[in-house]
C-alpha cells in the first residue's frame, strides 16, 4: 500500500521518441535494423537486382567460380547464384512472414481467449497447445507437410502451426499480466465491456512481447524451412530459397564452395539481424530493463 515508487524523475521519458528511433540509438538495434532492412530491400527489389533468370540453366557455365559475369558463381545447372540469392531472399522472407503470420494470428487469438476467459476454455486451449508443443517442431512440420503435400504454402502452414503454441503462451502470459494491472481494473471500474477491455486495453499492451516473439520466430521459420529442405520437404524447385540452395549445395561443397558460402552467409546475416533486432526490441519495449 505504502510502497513508494522508485525514483522516477531521473528516468528517461521513453515515449518521447518512437520505438524505431530508440532502436536506432542502440548500436545492436541499429545493426539489426540495417541487416533486416537490407534483406527486405533485396527481396523487394529482386527483379531489378537479379542479373539472370533464376531457373535459367547454362550448360556452358556449370559450377563457374564467382567472377565478373557471375558475381557469386553458378550452380551445377549453370544458374546464377547471385540472382538466386536475391530471389531466395523473397522466398525465405515470404516463408518466414507467412508462417509467422499464421502462428501469430492463431496464437494471438487463442492466447487472448485463454488469458482472458480462464477456467475451462483456458485449460482446453493450453492443453491443445501442450499437445502441439510436445512434438519436436521439425517432426511436426514434416508430418504436416507429408499430410498436406509439399508446396510452398504447405511449408508455410506447417511452420506456422508449429509456432502457434509459442505465441499463444506469450500472449496468454502478457494478457494475464496486463489483466492484473490497475488500468484494466480501472477500465472495468468505468464500466467498459469485457470484449472492449480485451481489445482496446489488452491488445496494445500485449503487442510488445508479441512483436519481439515474432522477430525471433521469423528467424526460426527461415531455419526450419532450411532443415525441411534438407530432409526433402522444403519448398518446390526451381524456386530458390536459401535453405534449399544450401541443402542442394552440400554435394558441391568441395567442388564449388561458393554454392555453400553465399546462401550460408545470407542466412547468417538474416538470422543474426532478426535475432539482434528482436533482442534490442525487447530491451526497448521492456521498461523493466531500462534504468
Amino acid at each position, binding site marked *: *500500500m*505504502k*510502497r*513508494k*515508487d522508485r525514483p*522516477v*524523475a531521473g528516468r528517461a*521519458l*521513453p*515515449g*518521447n521518441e518512437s520505438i524505431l528511433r530508440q532502436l536506432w540509438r542502440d548500436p545492436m538495434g541499429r545493426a539489426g535494423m540495417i541487416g533486416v532492412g537490407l534483406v527486405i530491400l533485396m527481396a523487394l527489389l529482386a527483379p531489378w537486382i537479379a542479373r539472370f533468370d533464376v531457373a535459367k540453366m547454362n550448360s556452358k557455365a556449370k559450377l563457374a567460380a564467382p567472377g565478373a559475369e557471375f558475381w557469386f558463381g553458378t550452380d551445377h545447372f549453370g544458374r546464377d547464384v547471385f540472382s538466386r540469392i536475391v530471389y531466395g531472399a523473397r522466398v525465405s522472407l515470404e516463408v518466414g512472414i507467412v508462417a509467422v503470420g499464421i502462428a501469430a494470428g492463431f496464437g494471438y487469438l487463442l492466447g487472448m481467449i485463454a488469458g482472458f476467459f480462464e477456467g475451462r476454455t483456458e485449460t482446453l486451449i493450453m492443453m491443445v497447445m501442450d499437445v502441439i508443443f510436445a512434438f519436436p517442431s521439425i517432426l511436426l512440420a514434416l508430418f504436416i507437410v507429408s499430410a498436406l503435400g509439399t508446396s510452398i504454402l504447405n511449408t508455410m502452414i506447417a511452420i506456422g502451426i508449429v509456432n502457434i503454441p509459442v505465441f499463444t503462451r506469450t500472449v496468454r502470459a502478457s494478457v494475464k499480466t496486463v489483466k492484473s*494491472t*490497475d*488500468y484494466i*481494473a*480501472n*477500465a*472495468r*471500474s*468505468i*464500466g*467498459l*465491456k469485457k470484449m472492449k477491455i480485451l481489445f482496446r*486495453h489488452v491488445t*496494445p*499492451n500485449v503487442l510488445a512481447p508479441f512483436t519481439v516473439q515474432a522477430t525471433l520466430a521469423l528467424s526460426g521459420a527461415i531455419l526450419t524451412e532450411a532443415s525441411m529442405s534438407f530432409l526433402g520437404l522444403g519448398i518446390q524447385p526451381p524456386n530458390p530459397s536459401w535453405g534449399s540452395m544450401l541443402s542442394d549445395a552440400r554435394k558441391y561443397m568441395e567442388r564449388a564452395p561458393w554454392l555453400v558460402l553465399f546462401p550460408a552467409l545470407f542466412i547468417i546475416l538474416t538470422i543474426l539481424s532478426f535475432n539482434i533486432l528482436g533482442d534490442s526490441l525487447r530491451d526497448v519495449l521492456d521498461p523493466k530493463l531500462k534504468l
Partner: protein
Amino acid sequence: MTERKSEFLLEVRKLQVYFPIRKGLMKRVVGHVHAVEDVSFSVRPREVFALVGESGCGKSTTGSAVLRLIEPTGGQVFFRGDELGRLSEEEMRLKRRDMQFIFQNPYASLNPRMNVWKLLSEPLRIHFQLSPGELRERVGEMLRLIGMTEDQLERYPHQFSGGQKQRISIARALITHPSFVVADEPVSALDVSIQAQILNLMMELQQEMELSMVFISHDLNVVRHISGSVGVMYLGSLMETGDTEEVYRHPVHPYTRALLSAVPSHDPLHRSRHIVLEGDVPNPADPPGGCPFHTRCSLCSGRCREERPELREIAPGHCAACHHVE
C-alpha cells in the same frame, strides 16, 4: 437524488470477502483468507468516509467489493436503496457511471498506450451518446477543473509527472459526474509536496461536484484532513468508527490509540511517546479467534480470546469493537 429511501447514499452491511485457498490433488478449497469480515458502514450524500488501517487490513478490498470490482462473498451493499449484489453484470456496468473508483497508483492505472483525450473521453463514450462537440466540451471542462490545459490532450501518461497522472486519473473517474467515488490511497504514491496538491484538488472537486466518497488511506494525517467520518480497520474488521475529529481526539479502541500514537510528530522537541505494539499482524488466512487484535493488545483478557467483540456505539455516532470499552 431521485428517490430517497434512507438518509444514506451508500450502506454497507456485513460485507464479507473471502479468498479461497486451494490445496491438494483436486485443488480443493481448504480454507479462506478472511480479507473482509462483517464490515458495515454508511455514507451520507456529500460525505467523505475514510477507511484507515495498515497494509493487509482489508480496506482496499472493502473498497473494491463495494463497487463489485471484487465480488463480495457475503453481505449487502445498498446504493440509493438498490442492492448492488442483485444487479446483473450489465446493470452493474451501467451503474458505474454513478459510482467510480480512483486508484492508488497513477503510474499503473492509466493505460500507457492511451493519450489524455482517449483516457478522458472513454468513460463518456461508454455511458453517454454525445456529439463530438459535446464530448470535447465535457473533456475540456474536466481538464480545467483539474488544472490542465487542452494542449496536453495528445500526450501519453508517461509524459506526465506522478501528480499530473493522478489528476488525469481523478478526471477520468469524475468525468461522468458520479455521485459516489471510492478513492483507494490516491496520494500515497506521491511525493509529500505533491500530495497536498492532489488532496486540495480532491476536496475542491468533492465540494463542487457534491460527491460522496469512501477515502481509503493508511496515512492518518491525510485521513484526518479529508474525511468527515472514519472507520479504522484491522485484520479485515472495523475496530472503530465515528466522526473523524471525535475518533482522533478520543480514540477508544486500543488499536486506534496505538495507531495514532505511532505517527511520527514533526516536532523534534516533542518526540512523541509512542505506544509501540509488539509483534506483527496475524495471518488473515488463519485469523485468531475472539478479538482479531487480542494477539497484540495490552488490555487483552480471557474474554478477548474467546469472544469476538461487536461494533457497539459508545457515544453518539462513535462505535468501537472492544470488550474493554464502556
